[in-house]
């Protein structure tokens, strides 16, 4: 299963463009941030809670455009609900096709939306010191976070699987896209969070974690890009994805990666330990995360557009 055979198809491109690109981008950030939040809650210290809430906010805000983008992308936006409900005469009722990532994704997005929204209000009320309503803590809270982690990871990555479960050249020629999108979604989230802690003092205790994890995720992403390339070699689709004009996008994506992997700015952010941050470092962190974010957008753009 390492290398796929060259599967020659004569598909027409589905005309998935900007809406989908930005959906993939925001879903990556939302899923990634929420996963990070859950991870912090599950395995972090109590001092990580502010960062977890920050991540929850990010997840929520990034999620907001998702249904809008998805709906606008439809040829019949008012029928967005047909993703969940079958209106075929004789087969009315909910529709779920586990073998169709778009169907799975539609349901996952609904559930994930529930998680994120609930967590968001939970974080919000806690931040405001309001009492109700709140999510449980303890074992149930753990379970909640565990499930949230799973859905977060899924939302960040399934979009890659969705592309693969097709007969498009490039997309269907590789098995790496799910992982790749997840890794890049996570690294983008970590980068973004690493930068945002600047504006939220209590969360700065976790800054080191963000910077560390960002590098881990990026390493993972790099490995998957290599795997992506390797899987495409036998199919001959390599030139298609990496040829002009896509080369430029890949360069951007790689610069993003390189920036994240080689700089230590985030380390410096946390180096002060006591919460005072060097101004220079903060600026550097901001550009670094911006570059990383642009990088993950470029990566998705290259993969979506070059195949079509």
């Amino acid at each position: 299963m390492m290398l796929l055979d060259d599967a020659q198809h004569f598909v027409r491109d589905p005309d998935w463009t900007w809406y989908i690109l930005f959906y993939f981008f925001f879903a990556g950030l939302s899923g990634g941030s929420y996963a990070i939040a859950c991870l912090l809650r599950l395995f972090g210290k109590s001092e990580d809670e502010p960062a977890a809430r920050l991540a929850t906010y990010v997840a929520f805000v990034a999620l907001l455009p998702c249904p809008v983008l998805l709906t606008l992308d439809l040829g019949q936006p008012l029928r967005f609900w047909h993703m969940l409900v079958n209106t075929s005469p004789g087969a009315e009722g909910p529709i779920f096709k586990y073998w169709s990532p778009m169907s799975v994704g539609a349901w996952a997005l609904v559930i994930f939306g529930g998680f994120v929204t609930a967590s968001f209000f939970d974080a919000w009320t806690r931040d405001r010191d309001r009492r109700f309503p709140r999510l449980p803590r303890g074992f149930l809270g753990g379970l909640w976070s565990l499930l949230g982690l799973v859905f977060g990871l899924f939302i960040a990555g399934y979009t890659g699987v969705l592309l693969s479960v097709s007969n498009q050249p490039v997309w269907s020629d590789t098995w790496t896209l799910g992982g790749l999108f997840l890794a890049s979604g996570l690294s983008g989230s970590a980068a973004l969070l690493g930068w945002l802690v600047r504006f939220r003092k209590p969360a700065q205790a976790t800054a080191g974690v963000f910077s560390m994890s960002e590098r881990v995720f990026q390493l993972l992403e790099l490995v998957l890009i290599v795997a992506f390339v390797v899987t495409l070699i036998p199919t001959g689709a390599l030139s298609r994805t990496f040829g002009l004009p896509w080369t430029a996008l890949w360069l951007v994506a790689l610069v993003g990666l390189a920036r994240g992997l080689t700089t230590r700015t985030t380390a410096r952010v946390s180096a002060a330990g006591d919460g005072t941050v060097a101004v220079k470092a903060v600026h550097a962190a901001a550009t670094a995360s911006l570059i990383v974010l642009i990088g993950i957008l470029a990566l998705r753009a290259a993969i979506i557009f070059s195949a079509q």
Partner: protein
Amino acid sequence: MAEITPGKAYGFFTDTSVCIGCKACEVACKSWNMLDGNPPVFGDGYDNTGSLDAQNWRHVQFLDNVADQAAGPGQGKAWLMMSDVCKHCTHASCLEVCPTGAIIRTEFDTVFIQPDVCNGCRDCISACPYGVIEMDKQKGVAQKCTLCYDRLQGGLEPACAKACPTQSIQFGPVIELRERAQKRLEVLHGQGVAEAQLYGHDEKVYGGLNAFFLLMDEPEKYNLPNEKNAVLPSRNNARGYLTLLATAVMAVLGGLIAIRRRREKTDDAAG
């Protein structure tokens, strides 16, 4: 034409060895289905339609292999013409991925997109290995050959088959068509036309195509994936999710490490 009975599998046997590229099928399809067609553009003089799309549910391909010689055999193999259409695959990639259930198998065992169910997500377009479907921008739904579902329900054969003057497009119960195709193949082979081959008549391609072909060259020449390449989108589900899972596990582990270590190793820790 014998009676058309629900419950039986219907389809087309398209015999490209007798196609004369007259495009009556294209026009008949447009007329019956009230398709506007695309704005006129010059293609290569003979094929100005280009491809199957939302406005063209039949498309006649022209493949010119004519040798520059003062005499030569035609036999359907020097200038190949083939009327392309949705294959109504037994294992249909489009139907497999469609999240809304808009794509169904009808009582005639054909693959039909219900225009009132489809929401225009276009997943089917990326799935169909034959480039059959396109979204109609005006209507906002995916469109392709319906195998004249409405006509079949009314007991009429499809418009394109009806219009085809040379019986290159033959409509009927798939079982009968397969027999006919086999016979025609034998005749052609008997006449020394070794190039002739059937495509999609058996399970090797997507479990069998209800609209199958007699070709005069390799399938790839006609933009048809060969047996080896005839694979379904769902083949990528397991490996795609597995990679996703593996990555997720690694990412969680990575996250745990980050949470434990909390900071990067750094040379200028003094900062």
